[in-house]
């Protein structure tokens, strides 16, 4: 590379201190969901004295070059999120042994790459719990799943959701649909509305930006939503629970192990047990018009199942196939 501008020189300087961290995500910020969550984690690193940079690399064919540019610019830690980055990391990480890579939400690399740490987030378990919750609180016996795009992790989440619901109530009926985009709340609303018109009364929304549409439809229909993003004032009244992940916290914690000297390559698990992923009652649950009490009651079952999942008594299926 070259270091002609002062910005570059400054970065190189920081790199010498091991204090620059870059976050690369495959989606733009602003989804109020995973990406924003990660960006919040980045802000914590900034507070901790890191020079931070956030890069939204929306074009999969640019992933490799973005990683390479960052590494060449002397970035000391590069955090990437989601499985889109598996192949680019495999290609780039070995070229820059002095740069640490933290991969949030992916399968561990086999064999382990010495400068890559993978944080495996288990979102299946909270999906399973969401199925338990939905089946418990549903009055109609019909529940729904709304995904963003139809991709393997969401298929897996759906299958876990289905299993949780079926295990709770064998006659439960489950509808599912994919918006086709994580950024189309309008269609999310129409899908949810259609589901509510077809007897669904609880939806697990795993649709990022499109989930807001699901919430709006639920407001209209007086139905319940298990939400995948951070709560906002708009989600009051229909969101009964949040099924999400502490991406940002986990990321910040893991990056901070580097100066602490405890960083290790390979696999780190962030699941229910580690509080990396969770299903918890909505903070604004009291504003839900009907059934807040039932939801609270249902959470006793949920906690019960959660314990069983953690100690292995309940097996959450893992199936990334469609259908």
């Amino acid at each position: 590379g070259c270091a002609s501008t002062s910005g570059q020189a400054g970065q190189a300087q920081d790199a010498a201190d091991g204090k620059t961290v870059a976050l690369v995500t495959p989606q733009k910020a602003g989804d109020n969901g995973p990406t924003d969550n990660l960006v919040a984690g980045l802000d914590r690193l900034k507070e901790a004295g890191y020079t931070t940079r956030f890069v939204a690399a929306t074009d999969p064919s640019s992933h490799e070059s973005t990683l390479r540019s960052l590494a060449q610019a002397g970035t000391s830690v590069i955090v990437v999120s989601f499985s889109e980055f598996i192949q680019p990391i495999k290609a780039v990480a070995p070229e820059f042994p002095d740069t640490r890579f933290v991969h949030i939400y992916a399968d561990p690399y086999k064999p382990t790459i010495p400068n890559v740490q993978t944080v495996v987030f288990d979102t299946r378990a909270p999906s399973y719990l969401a199925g338990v919750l939905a089946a418990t609180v549903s009055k109609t016996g019909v529940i729904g799943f709304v995904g963003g795009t139809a991709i393997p992790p969401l298929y897996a989440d759906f299958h876990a959701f289905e299993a949780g619901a079926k295990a709770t109530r064998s006659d439960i009926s489950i509808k599912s649909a994919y918006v086709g985009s994580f950024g189309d709340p309008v269609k999310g609303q129409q899908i949810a509305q259609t589901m509510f018109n077809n007897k669904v009364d609880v939806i697990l929304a795993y649709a990022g930006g499109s989930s807001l549409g699901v919430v709006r439809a639920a407001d209209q229909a007086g139905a319940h939503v298990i939400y995948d993003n951070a709560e906002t004032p708009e989600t009051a009244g229909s969101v009964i629970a949040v099924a999400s992940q502490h991406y940002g916290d986990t990321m910040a914690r893991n990056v901070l192990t580097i100066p602490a000297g405890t960083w290790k390559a390979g696999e780190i698990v962030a699941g229910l047990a580690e509080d990396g992923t969770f299903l918890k009652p909505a903070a604004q649950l009291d504003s839900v018009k009907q059934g807040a009490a039932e939801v609270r009651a249902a959470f006793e079952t949920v906690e019960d199942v959660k314990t069983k999942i953690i100690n292995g008594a309940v097996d959450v299926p893992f199936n990334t196939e469609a259908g």
Partner: protein
Amino acid sequence: MGDFLVTCLQAATPIWLAALAGMYAQRAGVVHLGLEGLLVSGAFAATATAVGTGSIVLALAAAVAVNLVLSALFWVLTTYFKANVMIVGLGLSLTAAGATGYALVVVFGSEAAIRSPIGLPRPFDGLSGPLAPLGDLSIVTFAAVVLSWFAWWSIRRTRAGLRLSACGSDPFAAKSAGVPVERYRLAALLIGGFLCALAGAELSLAQVQSFSDGISQGRGYLAFAAVLLGGVAPVGVSVASLFFGLAAALGIQSQVDFNDALPPQFVLMAPYVVTIVAISVTALANRRRGRQQTVIMERTL
């Protein structure tokens, strides 16, 4: 059933209004590929203003104002600077997408969706009985019904409409009849800007009451397809748009009902496949009826 029809109408409304906009433009001789951009800019302006002022009237006014400016820009570039209509249209769509995303960051500090405290009024909210589903429809959907009638009337039953159509059918003839062709084109584009402002407001403020980056998701291009599918005629364009609404609602319904049967990607493809088939069938029918496109001499003035 009523619910299903309401979903059809909701899905159709933005496409419908944008398609009417495209119809006016194409009648006047301007192929309008900027509909997508105008949808986004209308949606953004409406939502940003609603967030800022809390007034739905101001929100609509802002959407209209922004779209009038962009439509005028379209006109200036294509008419005065003789830029290629289609490239400018596509460029407008791309620029609007980028500019609204950029403005989100600059004005609101993040790329996050902005949420409006208010939505479009729903004139029949609170009805009970079989008409209850109508309560879910925003005022813009009803406006679309009225405006499509207006489009029909203005195009088919007024001299101004005849003059507008002449600008597209044979600009030289129009000019010979004393029609100020460029001004009529500007008028058509401005009407289109207004219609797309309503369509954009419907997208962002009717149901989801928020604007997020890329909210129109290609609906403007479907609207353009509806213009051609509907034979650039008011009734045909309305029918084509409603057909797209129906296709969208059916797509959703079939996902909900049989998601296991078919990979979701194929269900999501349906509207596009349907469009191609419909355009081809229309073209074939026109060809059968001998309505072939002929090379028209462009007489210069």
